[in-house]
């Protein structure tokens, strides 16, 4: 198995590493902050991030430095940074590890970002279910405050930055950056109409940047080792750096694997994740979280970088790679994801609100052996009427499972429908949990 240098998951592999301030500092932590704060002009920090080619790790992959650059220049009023730790995309569990194992790395990243864009108050919006993560972050922030990394006049260099942990309370949509802002403002987490974008009208209507945990965690390393170093990792120029891929499903060794972008799905699944868990062959892959269209074994040699995955018809998304073995019903899998989207649709836009319940009901009917011939055409049309017609990207995401499974495994749907009238309906094999 090829070995790659880890960046973000490196510290936590040190034996006995607890993620405490002392541990983090011993591993070289807060050196980047010391190096930058008051010494490198903020604009230069932004430039470095731009040059590094760092792109958002939350799902959309927008270049981080460019995003920062959208903040109005010479704006005197308050600006905000929100760290998006609302990790909720099914198949994704990397931020949780970064938070629980190495919280200071994130805090240092936030501080560098705040310094670069002139923010004095940052909120770390963490999904409500991460109770442990929130506790760990609170503890780490307390340590950092005591040590003078957070708060007034940081390291005596004149910058004051406060960071507060803000817990969500159970809503996938709050991972969407404007919904996150609404939620942080104490409202229902409904995505906002854009434009205006958060860069000019964000939290409390003030200029705001929202960055993902993994994105921010990269910053100390970029500051320490330089833009050129980072830019050379992975698949430059468009997919620089490593990605933490979260592999789940029917593999031997599920987990978070930090690898340079650009390795193939085959390498990730068969080398790093140990291959299939049983002798059943691979059937389907979701390469970038629940919102990403399914892949087939044909796609195993697709490179895991933004462009390659997109070209192959899916998206790199949040880095959640789910592997399914032969025998898994694709209709069932699509329904499971559709149920997720139905549950999480905020209800703002008509097509998504009404469409998600319609799609779920039709899918359930097909699974239950009550499908009709016309259903498939209806499913496709409904999906087409949802995608691209909503305020946020949720609409596009929710149709991905049905559209892609219909594309590659249409026969499974047809079989279910054909045998709907038959005395013995198709028996789906349902996965079971282990006994011990």
């Amino acid at each position, binding site marked *: 198995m090829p070995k790659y240098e880890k960046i973000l998951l490196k510290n*936590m592999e040190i*034996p006995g590493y607890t993620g405490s301030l002392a541990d983090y500092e011993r591993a070289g932590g807060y050196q980047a902050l010391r190096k930058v704060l008051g010494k490198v002009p903020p604009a230069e920090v932004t430039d470095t991030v731009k040059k590094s080619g760092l792109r958002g790790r939350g799902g959309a992959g927008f270049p981080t430095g460019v995003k920062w650059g959208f903040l109005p220049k010479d704006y005197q009023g*308050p600006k905000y940074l929100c760290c998006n730790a609302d990790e*909720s*995309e*099914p*198949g*994704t*569990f990397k931020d*949780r*590890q970064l938070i*629980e*194992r190495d919280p200071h790395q994130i805090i240092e990243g936030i501080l560098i970002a705040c310094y670069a864009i002139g923010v004095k*108050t940052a909120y770390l919006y963490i*999904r*409500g*279910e991460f*109770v*442990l993560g929130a506790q760990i972050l609170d503890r780490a922030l307390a340590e950092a405050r005591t040590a003078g990394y957070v708060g007034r006049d940081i390291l005596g260099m004149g910058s004051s930055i*406060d960071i507060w942990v*803000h*817990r*969500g*309370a*159970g*809503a*996938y949509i709050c991972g969407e950056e404007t919904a996150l802002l609404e939620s*942080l*403002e*104490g*409202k*229902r*987490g409904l995505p906002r109409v854009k434009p205006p974008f958060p860069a000019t009208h964000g939290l*409390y209507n003030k200029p705001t940047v929202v960055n993902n945990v993994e994105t921010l965690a990269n910053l100390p390393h970029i500051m320490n080792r330089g833009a050129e170093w980072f830019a050379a990792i992975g698949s430059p120029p468009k997919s620089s750096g490593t990605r933490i891929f*979260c592999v*789940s*499903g*029917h593999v031997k*060794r*599920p*987990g*978070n694997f930090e690898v340079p972008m650009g390795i193939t799905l085959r390498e990730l699944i068969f080398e790093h994740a140990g291959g299939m868990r049983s002798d059943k062959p691979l059937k389907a892959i979701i390469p970038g979280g*629940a919102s990403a269209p399914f892949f087939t074994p044909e796609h195993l040699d697709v490179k895991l970088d933004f462009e390659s995955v997109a070209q192959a018809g899916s998206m790199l998304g949040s880095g*959640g790679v*789910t592997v*399914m073995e032969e025998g*898994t019903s694709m209709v069932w899998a699509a329904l*499971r*994801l559709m149920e*997720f989207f139905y*549950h*999480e649709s*905020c209800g703002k836009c008509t097509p998504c609100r009404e469409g998600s319940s319609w799609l779920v009901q039709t899918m359930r009917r097909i699974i239950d052996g009550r499908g009709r011939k016309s259903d498939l055409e209806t499913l496709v049309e409904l999906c087409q009427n949802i995608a691209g017609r909503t305020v946020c990207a949720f609409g596009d995401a929710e149709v991905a499972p049905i559209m892609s499974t219909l594309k590659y495994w249409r026969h499974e749907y047809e079989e279910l429908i054909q045998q709907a009238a038959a005395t013995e309906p198709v028996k789906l094999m*349902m*996965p*079971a*949990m*282990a*006994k*011990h």
Partner: protein
Amino acid sequence: MLKEKYKAEIEDILSRYPVRRSAVLPLLYMAQQEEGYVSETAMKEIAGILRLTPPQVYEVVTFYTMLHLKPIGKFHVQVCKSLMCALVGSDTLLAWLKARLGIGPGETTPDKLFTISTVECLASCGTGPMMQVNDDYYESITETKLDGILADLTRDGTSSLKSGPFMLPEPAGSQCKM
């Protein structure tokens, strides 16, 4: 009343935000911690503290799945039913819970000890099937482990089988969590 009991905490929370309304989730958590659910009295009090109308607090409570408007069991067992956990058997986890506790999702045991809910992805996809009981995660659940957890909870109110800080894959040679 929260205001009397948690005066300092409330002040501290309010001091973090330039706009009072932002404190609505933190205060709702405080209320839920206090009573086990968010009561109308609490919503009215929070509305008063934040200068909102009660409907403005109420609409927030109903949007987020972690806030409850009615009392629930002492242990809130939330089983992830999203695809990734389903691939590794979350449906049988629910069946097993039903066999053990006699209740299904949305139900509470007569002794008010357990309430089961199905929830969507809790970011534990590599360690499914999994469930969250109150604040704690329980991962890579097997039949044996589930029995252990339920026994622990009933007996001790907590279980050592819960997850600690997350690490996957676990480094070779490290203590297995389970």
